[in-house]
């Protein structure tokens, strides 16, 4: 009986069409086109691909020998490592701490999550001011603290001397709250009886974290790591606002792709293909490591 009402299927396409038409036109079709474009010669952005390149794979050999691309790849790998360790690490610590308290848990959740809703462009500007050479927040603080000499106005040039650190700090900081909430949800799913039983058996807090919490949180941590990896590959707005055109050798695969998009269109296409491959390979690897049991089928 219950299936009866879903037997009239003649018109279901009317409901499916708009959504899938949007995705066909703006995702699947361009995605395939972009792969083809990476083997073609395109003179101007916005014009169609002309002849095939000779040899057809020339963009990819160029990719391998491009020094800036190598910098971008290196920086992207650093970014991925930093986001996994920094974001997921800090988030795990904070969520374990918050799960121990009752008073103020809601407040911390709200406050930690807040940076995520602010545009990365605004944050980029904000951190430009924080790391500003001539008396930004950090340099002023260091002068007040006496680490930098105030009389001679000693300053640290963060954006050229410590470029990667300066770029990654806001990137990591912004999304800690995101992983914090995911891990907190995971923590709330662990039955309280397990902890009670462990307390009766005389385990310490540290043992409980090690032998109950972390193993049971494995899936949530795995989700976070995958999101951190794919997120690190997508990051664009913040690095671009703080370090326009890869200044101080801060190219990432995404920003480098953008820098080529008007000058060498088909080469930019091949960088985009490379970003996709990198993303698929890395997510598969992380998935394997954490061997998620969650079934993804809906």
């Amino acid at each position, binding site marked *: 009986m219950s299936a009866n009402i879903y037997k009239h299927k003649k018109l279901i396409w009317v409901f499916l069409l708009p959504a899938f038409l949007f995705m066909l036109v703006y995702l699947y079709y361009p995605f395939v086109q972009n792969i083809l474009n990476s083997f073609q010669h395109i003179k101007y952005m916005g014009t169609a691909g002309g002849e095939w390149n000779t040899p057809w794979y020339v963009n990819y050999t160029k990719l391998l020998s491009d020094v800036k691309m190598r910098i971008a790849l290196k920086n992207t790998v650093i970014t991925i490592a930093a986001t996994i360790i920094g974001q997921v690490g800090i988030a795990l610590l904070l969520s374990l701490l918050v799960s121990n308290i009752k008073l103020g848990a809601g407040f911390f959740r709200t406050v930690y999550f807040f940076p995520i809703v602010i545009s*990365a462009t605004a944050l980029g500007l904000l951190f430009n001011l924080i790391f500003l050479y001539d008396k930004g927040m950090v340099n002023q603080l260091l002068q007040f603290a006496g680490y930098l000499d105030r009389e001679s106005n000693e300053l640290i040039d963060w954006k050229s001397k410590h470029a990667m650190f300066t770029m990654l700090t806001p990137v990591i900081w912004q999304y800690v709250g995101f992983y914090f909430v995911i891990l907190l949800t995971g923590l709330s799913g662990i039955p309280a009886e397990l902890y009670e039983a462990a307390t009766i058996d005389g385990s310490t807090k540290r043992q409980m974290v090690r032998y109950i919490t972390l193993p049971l949180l494995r899936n949530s941590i795995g989700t976070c790591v995958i999101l951190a990896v794919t997120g690190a590959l997508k990051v664009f707005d913040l690095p671009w606002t703080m370090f326009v055109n890869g200044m101080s050798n801060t190219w990432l695969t995404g920003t480098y792709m953008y820098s080529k998009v008007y000058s060498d269109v088909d080469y930019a296409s091949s960088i985009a293909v490379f970003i996709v491959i990198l993303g698929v390979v890395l997510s598969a690897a992380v998935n394997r490591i954490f061997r998620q049991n969650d079934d993804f089928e809906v």
Partner: protein
Amino acid sequence: MKKKLSPGYVLIYLFLILWALTTIFPLAWTLMNSFKDKKMIYSNSFALPTGIAFSLDNYRNIFANYDIVSAYRNSFIISGTVAAAVILFSGMAAYILCRYRFRGRNLLILLLYAGMMFPIYSTIIPVMRMQTKWGIVNSPYVWKNLLSVILPQIAGNMSFAIIVLMGYIRTLPVELEEAAYMEGCNMFGTYFKVVFPLCKPSMVTVGIFSFLWSYNDLFTQMFFLRTKENWAITILLNNIASKEGVNYGALFASVTLIVIPVLIVYMFLNQYIIKGMTVGAVKG
């Protein structure tokens, strides 16, 4: 359970408050300095802007030189349309995928998950070409330029939204739909009169996510909103940043102007927003 004031708890709170300060303090610092002139910022950026130090010049300067109002309007048109279209279309598709069994269903679901894997980098060049051909890029009409941002952003949020809504619709009791069917409702009636109203909480979640994502997305705006009158808020901020270079007061003021509306919305809707931004991630 009498360990409320043990040193362990004090340490926990100390650490948690420390991280909370890293998210609150930079914004408070920005707000504070947006009311000070450059000299005051330079001598001590931590001093409160009281008495003669207080000035609205930075804001006057920003409003005089940039069309903030028009950028806000464009942003709200873009992001509002994106959120509305995503809610409407994703809900309809999610309903069918959830309730009906038909040939090709598995393929569509596979495509849905694949759609979440394509980064914007891998589609932007062909999308640019396509929309140029249609004449909606670099058009003299503002609405056409806005449309060229709206359309790709709708597509970009679609698969996420459908997946979230499918998860929700699956939990709804079928009996209500059966009752509607008995009353003579067809598929359209059943969906719009019964299912859609029941989905409201999830629709709000999806809408907020799409709105914020679109509002904050600089990348797409950089390609399609290239002239002043078309600027939305994010691209405007990007341009202020490159033009005002060392005019720190103006930079503080413009960051404040961009962040305040989001902050206000966040204060009222933070539970929905947090759920909206994380639910899709946890689901898959």
